[in-house]
């Protein structure tokens, strides 16, 4: 009887794993087939912002720190990549890499100052520092201020993948997106990720257990910055332009909304949140209503009504169902 019980009680776990595998396969199939139904450039935009939001989620959801300055990494890396490709003749791969390198350095600099304070102070400090970066970019000669860097070429990747073709570029973007998401998955499910969760749940206790909390926080902040940079650099390849919009504080707010809407601290939530926000923005662009109204209202609704986000709420619902299911099974057995 106990053996049977043990067997049935592990059953929901297995089912959850199968469900996740099926979800992954469906997701990959969807990514492969999507450009046949939808405009590839919009899909690529969606993937870039999905990666950006997922990167922010590392800090926001798994680190428990509200970072209000991620636009600096996203837009800053975009500027660097655009300049490197257009003026220095970099390729696609090296262009992405130099953008990420910039974001890592910027993330280190911002992080080392911002993690000195927690909570609101952290939020306000990152916001203020990113505003400083905004003015610096605005005045730097290579960004062309309001004009931005335009008409950035799409060089071949590794010399033979023709990124000038939208479909080829789409699959390239998908590949980079998946690599980015894999890095995030690995970070979350590593001992490092577990330590981050401990810090989020109770920083003082983790500190007293002998963890160098600030070093962990800085590391996760830098990783998140680097991935945000990757997303920003990728966006340059898609739109061939880098502008002030991407470094402005409104962008930092938008990406927080994407993460919040999809589900803070869930793996796929930010991507779904990004898709939702971009789709609605796309729709609103054809009306005369300013998009800030939608963003503001979405923030209010999200914070007031469903703080777990879409994926977070679904996840909670499924967990309840599974728990109820396994109890029902146990009762039947007895």
């Amino acid at each position, binding site marked *: 009887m106990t053996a049977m019980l043990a067997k049935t009680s592990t059953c929901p776990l297995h089912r959850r794993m199968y469900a996740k595998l099926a979800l992954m396969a469906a997701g990959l199939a969807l990514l492969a087939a999507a450009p046949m139904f939808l405009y590839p450039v919009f899909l690529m935009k969606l993937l870039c912002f999905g990666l950006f939001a997922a990167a922010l989620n590392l800090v926001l959801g798994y680190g428990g720190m*509200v970072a209000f300055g991620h636009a600096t990494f996203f837009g800053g890396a975009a500027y660097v990549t655009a300049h490197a490709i257009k003026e220095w003749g970099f390729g696609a791969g090296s262009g992405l890499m130099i953008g990420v390198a910039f974001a890592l350095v910027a993330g280190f600099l911002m992080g080392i*100052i*911002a993690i*000195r*304070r927690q*909570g*609101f*102070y952290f*939020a*306000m*400090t990152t*916001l*203020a*520092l990113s*505003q*400083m970066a905004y*003015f*610096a970019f*605005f*005045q730097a000669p290579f960004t062309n201020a309001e004009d931005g860097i335009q008409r950035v070429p799409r060089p071949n990747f590794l010399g033979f993948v023709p990124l000038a073709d939208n479909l080829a570029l789409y699959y390239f973007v998908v590949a980079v997106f998946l690599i980015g998401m894999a890095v995030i998955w690995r970070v979350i499910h590593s001992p490092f990720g577990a330590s981050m969760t401990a810090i989020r749940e109770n920083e003082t206790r983790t500190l007293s257990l002998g963890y160098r909390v600030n070093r962990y926080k800085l590391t996760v902040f830098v990783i998140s910055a680097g991935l945000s940079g990757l997303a920003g650099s990728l966006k340059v390849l898609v739109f061939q332009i880098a502008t002030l919009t991407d470094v402005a*504080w409104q962008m930092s*707010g938008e990406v*927080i909304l994407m993460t*919040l809407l999809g589900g803070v601290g869930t793996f796929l939530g930010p991507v779904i949140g990004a898709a939702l926000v971009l789709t609605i923005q796309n729709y609103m662009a054809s009306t*005369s*209503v*300013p*998009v*800030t*109204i*939608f*963003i*503001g*209202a*979405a*923030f*209010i609704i*999200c*914070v*007031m009504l469903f*703080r777990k986000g879409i994926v977070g709420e679904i996840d909670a619902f499924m967990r309840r169902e599974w728990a109820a299911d396994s109890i029902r099974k146990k009762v039947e057995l007895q």
Partner: protein
Amino acid sequence: MIFGVPLVALASQLVLGLFNGAFYALLSLGLGVIFGLLRVVNFTHGAFYTVGAFTAFLLTNQAGLSFWASLLIAPLIVAALAAVLERSLLRKLYGLDALYGLLLTFGIALLIEGMLQMFFGVAGQPYQVPAVLSGTSNLGFMFLPHYRAFAIGISLLLCLLTWLIIEYTSLGAKLRAATENSSLLEVFGVNVPLLLTCTYAFGGALAGFAGVVAAPVFQVSPLMGSNLIIVVFAVVIIGGLGSITGAIVSGLMLGVLEALAKVYWPPSANLVPFLIMAVVLFLRPRGLFGKGE
């Protein structure tokens, strides 16, 4: 000539710096009072400032009221708006992680800004300086625009008044007590929820007042608040949240330093507040006037 800059130019920049600093002081004072009691970083503060300016603009240009009447009425309207927001939305988040308050007020700020944009467009609207204050005086070494002097004077007066209220009246004592331990205060029979609403409304009124005073000098535009509020955040971090002296002193100081930067190395002017903030965070993470937590 001082370091190669004519005295007249330097003096008028300093007045401009004090003028900006007075706004920083008024706004960071309100932010500080709200934060102290509600533990909410009020992102909507910039929007309150903008709403104050727009209300004055409408009161004068549509309803034909004088500048002085607007200066009294507009802050009251902003206070009412703030009270409604606190009662209907903010209040429901008090038990939760305080960062939700920040995100909520951020959303409200965007919503208000977006609506103003929809009705008035992004372009700035002009607002007349009242006739009494429109001249300038020659002080010998510089020309002092009357309105600037008035704005600096009245803002500082309001800061001083706020400080006196908080330090020396029984209402201020209750406010400070609630900041220390609100549940204990409630046990003594003080209506703490009402106190919270009033505090939020008062902070909003200060921001609205600043908006009215700013309207004749800067153009009245939907984005005037959001550009200012980030600098004010830097001011608050430099001064230390919850310190009234800190808010006023660092507000004025930052205004003046910004003006000096404009004179000696113009491209750095926008960066100065944030650079100072970074240095302060490094040397004194609690801010210049901040107490331990």
